[in-house]
């Protein structure tokens, strides 16, 4: 009997799937609720009262602003590096055959495939060896290392879908290499790069493990949050920040989805 294939799922399946979705989303929604609670010292449920005052408090906290600014700066520059290096690699790998081509694909994915703690320790010892003290730039280098693969995957997928004869046609019509890049290649991979860049930004913005090893005294927002988790100061303020972070990372994801919806593999798997 073709009950499953033809008409729709059986209700236990529907129930399990629905419960699963609820399980995934509920914790995040709870955070939103807790951002409004009046209770300061514990995680009491249900919240005794609702208030907006924690938003104002969070707004006034200097350490939060510093952490936020640092996170944004780090994410921006790391994404820039990742965009350049990732696109160059993707262009080289998809356009020519050369010795060690598969090796590059493996190499690029390594920083993200290995547990963060290994990448963190490795980078820290590399910096120690070259006697580079932890600074803004060590954080950026660490982030760029694992952000490359996100851009790379998106770019490679798009390069594969672009017809090879477009470059030849462009050159045939009189465009040299740089003109071809500007007028033909870039417009065709633009949205893939944008999607990859946004995902890289979100990845960098959220990263905590590698950052613990590559940061010195500075705190990115995740580092701030980790501190709050271990030694809480004002719980509801943390909730406000948490809610803010969820919203901020949601938007690039949504945008990246719409940009690459037509057939590319979504690079979410690269994380």
């Amino acid at each position, binding site marked *: *009997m073709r*009950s*499953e*294939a033809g008409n729709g799922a*059986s209700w236990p*399946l529907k129930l*399990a799937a629905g419960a*699963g979705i609820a*399980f*995934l*989303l509920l*914790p*995040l929604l*709870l*955070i939103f609720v*807790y951002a409004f609670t009046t209770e300061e010292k*514990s*995680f*009491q*449920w249900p919240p005794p009262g609702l208030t907006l005052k924690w938003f104002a408090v969070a707004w006034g906290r200097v350490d939060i602003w510093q952490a936020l600014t640092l996170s944004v700066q780090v994410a921006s520059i790391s994404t820039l590096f990742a965009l350049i*290096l*990732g696109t160059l*690699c993707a*262009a*080289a790998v998809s*356009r020519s055959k050369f010795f060690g081509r598969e090796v*590059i694909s493996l190499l*690029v994915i*390594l*920083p993200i495939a*290995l*547990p*963060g*703690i*290994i*990448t963190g*320790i*490795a980078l820290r*010892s*590399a910096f120690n060896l070259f006697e580079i003290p932890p600074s803004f730039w060590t954080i950026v280098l660490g982030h760029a290392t694992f952000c490359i693969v996100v851009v790379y995957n998106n770019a490679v997928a798009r390069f594969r879908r672009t017809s090879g004869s477009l470059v030849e046609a462009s050159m045939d019509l009189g465009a*040299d*290499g*740089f003109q071809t890049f500007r007028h033909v290649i870039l417009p065709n991979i633009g949205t893939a790069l944008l999607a990859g860049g946004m*995902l890289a930004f979100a990845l960098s*913005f*959220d990263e*905590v*493990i590698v950052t613990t090893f590559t940061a010195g005294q500075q705190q990115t927002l*995740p580092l701030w*949050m*980790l501190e709050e*988790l*271990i030694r809480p100061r004002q719980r509801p303020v*943390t909730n406000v920040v*948490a809610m803010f972070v969820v919203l901020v990372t*949601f938007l690039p*994801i949504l945008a990246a*989805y719409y940009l690459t919806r037509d057939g590319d593999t979504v690079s*979410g798997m690269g*994380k």
Partner: protein
Amino acid sequence: MSSEAAVLPGRGGIFGGLSDLFWRQPKLFVFLLLTPAALWLGIVYLGSLFTLLLQSFFHIDDFSGLVVREFTLATYAELFKPQNLDVIVRTVVMSALVTLGSIVVAFPIAYYAARYAKGRWKAVFYLAVMLPLWSSYLVKVYAWKLILAKEGIVGWVFEQLHITPALDAILAIPVIGGNSLSFSFIGTFLVFLYIWLPYMILPIQAAVERVPVNLIDAAADLGAPPVTIFRHVIFPLALPGIVAGSIFTFSLTLGDYIIPQIVGNGRLFIGQVVYTQQGTAGNIPLAAAFTVVPVVIMGLYLWGARKAGAFDAL
């Protein structure tokens, strides 16, 4: 007919000259494309990974506290000390349990999303998985700290249903129980499960999507009941997705050091040992030896999965 020459001069200047050069020497061009990334990843990153591995073959001198750079297996031998072995076993068991648990929870979601979700619902399922996946890791851990807190929502639900004694009974179970959910292994398990769940859902969904619908129709045509269809057609074809997902959940749990610290009963996991050893203890060789453990375990796991034919359908 055109009155221009057949061969025109180039653009001139830097760009024109470089263009001609790269066209004449494509290999040079590729080399330049790759060099920055290759230098950084290949030399610096790989190099430091290799150095780390090397460190595991050194040992720390008990008296001076300094690293002695001589080849020895003594540090690896230390892994077999009871308290270290304990840590390893604990981490591996937790990883296995989390993997199994996430397969059970993820499969219905992935299956439904792949085969029955259409149109708007497909987008809903996609976003429902993507949002937790890309939300801040720490925020998610934090959310569970809220949920599992003694005064939090779980306790409240049990109270409303008048089954608080059941919760106490669960917490009283030795080894995995604790003072409250957020200080027990059950709590750790739940958090791990939640955080890695999207990594299990996505590959299973991709694998199921690749199963041609007419295979299932053919099996049904031949008279197979749904359970048999599942066991002999769907599950084997979804297996590569399950294996791929399990690689994520297993290896991510093996290396994690933040979650056990925040939601757990204080017993150590591999990640935490590595963190403390390379930090305050300054015992880099031991930290290095400990990092090798998850890598080796994952290697064995992949090899075993391959042997069992999990990658055959790929």
